[in-house]
């Protein structure tokens, strides 16, 4: 029994069909519990008031935005090295989820920033990095959409993902450097480790787990869809060959 058994599309589909209902329920339950706990059973921050509670969406979304890209990187590597189709399709399936998570993080960040910092947007390193990450996601998805042949698309996007990861990390450091160069310590960024008290951190962990489960469920579900779409394509092509 090896992990690579799940690289077989059929095995993957049957297993994920069994796991998915549990995942959906667990994800929904922990997000609901986490959000209710966070919204209604934590005190308001003495400085930020109730706006602080957006943290329960903002932070988990940001976390998953980065992890989704990381998962795509791993899946791309598996495709390049072992050439399992499921892996390539999982990377394809994760990208839109990742881009939505990035968007949620950006929007909730703006909503949070407006009352706190007095501006919807600041060129803070962390914010800017997320914007750049968003652009990387867009390019990756656009390349998948542009290429007809699925294997070629998988190959090209995997290499783009590898190269993009290196440049994304570079951008992160470049942005950090760039902003210090501009603002000299007048940065608006919140040091989360210091600011978040225990009262907030427990429901936050629950939300994080919930978002992670939701991400997993969405990726499994979407990978299944991609596998079926790929299967249909293959069947149509074969039919054309036979006639």
């Amino acid at each position: 029994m090896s992990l690579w058994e799940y690289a077989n599309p059929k095995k993957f589909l049957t297993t994920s069909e069994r796991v998915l209902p549990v995942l959906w329920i667990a994800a929904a339950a922990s997000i609901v519990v986490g959000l209710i706990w966070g919204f209604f059973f934590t005190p308001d921050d003495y400085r930020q008031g109730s706006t602080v509670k957006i943290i329960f969406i903002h932070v988990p979304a940001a976390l998953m935005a980065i992890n989704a890209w990381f998962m795509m990187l791993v899946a791309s590597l598996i495709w390049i090295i072992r050439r399992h189709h499921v892996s390539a399709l999982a990377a394809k399936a994760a990208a839109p989820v990742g881009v939505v998570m990035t968007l949620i993080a950006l929007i909730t960040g703006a909503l949070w920033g407006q009352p706190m910092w007095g501006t919807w947007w600041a060129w803070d390193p962390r914010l800017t990095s997320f914007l750049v990450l968003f652009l990387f996601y867009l390019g990756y998805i656009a390349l998948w959409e542009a290429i007809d042949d699925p294997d070629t698309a998988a190959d090209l996007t995997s290499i783009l993902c590898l190269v993009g990861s290196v440049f994304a990390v570079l951008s992160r450091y470049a942005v950090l450097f760039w902003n210090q160069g501009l603002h000299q310590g007048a940065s608006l960024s919140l040091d989360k480790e210091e600011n978040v008290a225990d009262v907030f951190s427990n429901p936050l962990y629950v939300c994080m787990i919930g978002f992670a489960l939701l991400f997993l469920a969405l990726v499994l579900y979407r990978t299944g869809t991609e596998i079926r779409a790929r299967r249909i394509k293959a069947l149509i092509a074969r039919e054309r060959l036979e006639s």
Partner: protein
Amino acid sequence: MTLTVTDLSVTRGGLPVLSGVSFALVPGEALVLRGPNGIGKTTLLRTVAGLQPPYMGSISGHEDQIAYAGHLDGIKPTLTVAENLTFWARVFGRSDVKYAISDAMSDFDLEGLADRPAGNLSAGQKRRLGLARLMVTKRPIWVMDEPTVSLDSASVQRFSEVVRTHLEHGGSALIATHTDLGLEGTLLDLGVYRAEPTAMDDFDGAFL
């Protein structure tokens, strides 16, 4: 150098089109590929030329031996005929560039056009230039995909002369064509190698 193809399968758009193709091309011989449109001649030639990996089977004796001529001639319209040929002679590392290109131009009757920008050539003249490129590569195995398209009968005659001389000098040629070139080569009908759709198994790794 003998080009050996063993049990080769090739795919186009992810589907196998030919399977189990085997042949050996010895120096001094020509092999003419026949088969209806869409059978996979171009795909086979591109695989042999190393432009795409074989799906199954193996090819040997092709490394750095093949001069490939596809449907497109790779001609730069703003360069003259002589400049186009000079470029390819230099890319293929010829030391005697001048000699090589004048030889190739005289064989394909391009001398009068040497200083003409290639963009001004007619379709047939362009094709002749594309075929002259094969000569300047000095590679022993010529792999040609429909070489006689848009050539007039005199040029076809000239072309088969050139191929014959090439064979006499120990070269070989793999040609996909529908016209009779009058070459004493082996004919290979690809119809028998048409890939059978594999039995409908359940979901396998390759989606095929």
